Structure formats: C-alpha cells, structure tokens
C-alpha cells in the first residue's frame, strides 16, 4: 500500500498523462483475414505468382516433397497384425463366474478344478486349434470369492492368487501342450481314439520363467518357495493365511501327467471298461522320463 504522499503524487501524474486507449497499450492484434485479390490492384495473376503448377491448378501428388524422400516412405512400416496367427490366447474365466459355478454345482469343488472340469461344466469351450492354450482367471469378483478350491489354470494375476488363497484354497499355474490339451478338452473323445495317453511336454523356453516362478505359483516351482510367497502375498493384501491341510486341496499332478490317477502311456478302453498299462521296459522308461 502506497503512502498518502505517494497516492497524491500518482494522481497528479495521471492528470498529465494521455487517456488509456488501444493505441497506447500492449495488446494482441490479430491479422485481418486474407481476401482474394480482385479489382484494380488485385488482378493479373490474382496472387498465384507466375506460371508453375500452382498457377495452373495442377499440383504434385499429396506427400511429394520436391524429390526428397517423402515422410511416408522414409518412416519404416510396422504391421499391427504381424504374427497374429501365431499368438497364443488364454480365454478368461472370472472369479465371479467360478464362484457361481461352484455354488450351482456346475463344478466339483471337492476335487481339483482344472481345464477339464471347466470344459465339462459346459459353460466354457476351449479350442486348442485356434491357438487357445488354456484358461486365465480374471479378478472380476475377487471381493466376493469365498470358497476354498484347488485351482489349476494356465495364467493368473497376483490379485487372483491372493483372492483364492485368502479364501483358504490353493492355485497352480500349469502348462499343457497341444496334444495334451486336445485330450483334456474332451477326454471321452480322446479315449475313443484308442491312443495311449501322451506324455505332457515341458513349457517352451519363453514360458519356462513363468512356470518355474513361485510368485506366479508355477507348477515347476520349488514348493518351499511357494509357501514363502504365500505368506508374502498375505502380508501384502492384508489377510491371515488360512491353514490348508494336506488332502484334496493340495493334490497336484506330476509335470508329465495329464489326468489324475492315469499315467502317460496307459491305454483306456471305454467299451470294455479297462485300462491297459505298459509292460515293455523301453516304452515304460520313455513314458516315465
């Protein structure tokens, strides 16, 4: 705040200075719109210059830069669908859907819920020939999932693992190759082929990291490390880790096994209700390796 003397001095000054107007202050001054050259001084070439393609309305093609390699050729192409026919898919099953299936008895929560169980419910279909390599569990309904289940899927995020373990269940991520998948998706059809149960292949190189990692509950991970990660996750998401007793909730297949109770190499005869084992030592060794 200026003093009394300062105020009076300022007012005295104002009396001698010119009135504030647009011509004596700094203000934005837009250019007037350009107008077509017409009339006495706008004639002759009408702003188009002399000769050339521009004066004759015969312009060069769009993107032409006078001979310099144009931008649209200079920049390399990136194909958005490159390799789309080789990319693997994991159709989603949400926790909400899973809870609904368990509640409505579409799926048996007393046994391991794996790919076959989900397909047998009739609600989900997996098409291995369309590069669908299994199911992934999504986190929709994670707050309402309460049933302890023994879950085996092909991919699950950290939140989903936390939701399942919080409810008192267990979750494993496992890999199945094409031949095993086709057996799992429709076991009855597979057994009718009269072909021995194949040996499940190990995951490809880029998936080995995922399936040997205890934090993603990979089926090839060290179980002791998995137990430690269970505690870490419980600490992260703020729940007391429930006690899980050895039994139906902890049963797991061998990494080479496709069906529970059936080994690779066995032949299932549905008509005579028989299961044939391998006795040849060479073949037996092959199927157990």
């Amino acid at each position, binding site marked *: 705040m200026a003093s009394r003397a300062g105020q009076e001095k300022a007012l005295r000054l104002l009396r001698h200075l010119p009135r504030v107007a647009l011509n004596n202050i700094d203000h934005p001054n837009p250019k007037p719109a350009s107008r077509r050259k017409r009339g006495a001084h706008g004639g002759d070439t009408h702003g188009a210059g002399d000769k050339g393609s521009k004066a004759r309305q015969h312009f060069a093609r769009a993107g032409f830069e006078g001979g310099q390699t144009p931008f649209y050729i200079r920049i390399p192409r990136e194909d958005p669908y490159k390799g789309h026919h080789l990319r693997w898919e994991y159709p989603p099953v949400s926790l909400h859907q899973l809870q609904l299936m368990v509640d409505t008895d579409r799926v048996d929560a007393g046994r391991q819920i794996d790919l076959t169980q989900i397909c047998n419910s009739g609600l989900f279909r997996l098409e291995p020939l369309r590069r669908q390599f299994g199911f992934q569990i999504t986190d929709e309904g994670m707050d309402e999932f309460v049933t302890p289940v023994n879950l085996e899927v092909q991919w699950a995020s950290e939140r989903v693992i936390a939701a399942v373990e919080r409810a008192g269940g267990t979750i494993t991520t496992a890999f199945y190759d094409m031949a095993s998948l086709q057996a799992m998706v429709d076991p009855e059809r597979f057994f009718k082929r009269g*072909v021995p149960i194949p040996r499940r292949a190990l995951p490809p190189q880029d998936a080995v990291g995922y399936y040997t990692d205890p934090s993603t509950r990979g089926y090839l991970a060290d179980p002791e490390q998995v137990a430690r990660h*269970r*505690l870490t996750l419980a600490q992260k998401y703020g729940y007391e880790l429930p006690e899980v007793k050895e039994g139906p909730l902890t049963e797991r297949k*061998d*990494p080479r*096994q496709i*069906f529970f109770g059936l080994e690779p190499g066995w032949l299932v005869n549905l008509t005579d209700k*028989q299961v044939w084992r391998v006795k040849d030592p060479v073949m037996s060794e092959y199927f157990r390796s």
Partner: protein
Amino acid sequence: MAATMYAGCVRRLLFSCNSQCLNTGASAHLSGFKSAYSLDKLYPGSNLSFTASVPAPSNDKGFSGYIPIKELEISYSRSGGPGGQNVNKLNTKVDVRFHVATASWLPQEAKDGLLQKYRSRISRDGYLLVRSERTRSQHLNIADALDRIRYLVTDVLQKPKEASPESIEKHRRLHERATRERLREKRHRSAMKRQNTVDL
C-alpha cells in the same frame, strides 16, 4: 510313429488288463506317478509342501515389513464420490487402526517416531488411523492401507544422511554468492527506479 511302436509292444508282450473305474475322486489324490521331472527330483533339498506354515520374520532388529494382521482393527464402510449402485451398496472404504504404544510388533524407536512425526494421524486414544478408498475393490484398499502403514514406519525409522564437510562448505559458498548477487540486483533495480521517476 510312437503309436505304431506302441502297438507293436502291446502285441508282443504280456499286458495287464486292469479293470478299474476311471479316475475316481477317492484315489485321485493318491496318484503316485513320478516322472523324471517330478518336484522331488527338481528340488531334492525341498520339503515339497507348498502349504507349510512359514515362520513370520521378527521385527526386533528393525522393521522387516511384517505386520500381524490380527493385531490390526479393520473396519469397512461405503466410499464417497460418484459410482452409482456400486458405490452406494458395497463397503469398499477401509479403515485400519492400531494402538501405537501397545503394538508389540513395532520397535520402540518406530513407536516414538510415529507419535512425534505423525501425531496428526493419531487419535486421542493413541490409535494410528489409516483410511483408504483409492480403488473400487475392498481387498485392494486394504492392501493400499497396509502399504501406507509400512511407508509411515519406514519413514520414521529412516536416519537422515549426514553431509560431508566438503558439501557443507560448497553449499555455504553458493549461498553466499547467491546473496551477493541478490543484493547487487536489488541495488541496481532501486537505482533504475529512482532514475525513471518523473519529478513533477
């Protein structure tokens, strides 16, 4: 090729016809098949139990990050803001509190630090309050609240870094130079203003 090889073996040798029902639930978890890649062969030293209870890390030598969840009081309520039926009906807001002075899992240094630095978060009864309505999910909000508690404790236990004598000297010189420069400009500005005033 494998199929024809197999067929040959079956025809040549004795095969055992095992009449059994397929994959009964009763014997499912007793399947004893072990291939060359079974977990006991991949991890020979492991106890092979992925649901074994792991001992909780202790907080005696400093805060390890472990918080015993049963010693926290977690309550839920409805969140604020827009969201329609979801926000009106679901209890997604989380309130986590614990009594600082009697928390057995906190080192004394952390307790003193919390009571001093974060006293605005501590109620009159001595409870540290952390609320979260950050996400649409109650579980994720609990995780957020716990993350915040861990941040507060580690922040309070952090010792300030000691500056070396060289950097202290450097900062002193720079400050002195800045002050000199500031005063010089101030004097210059004052002189210019005096010069530009109109004497009526």
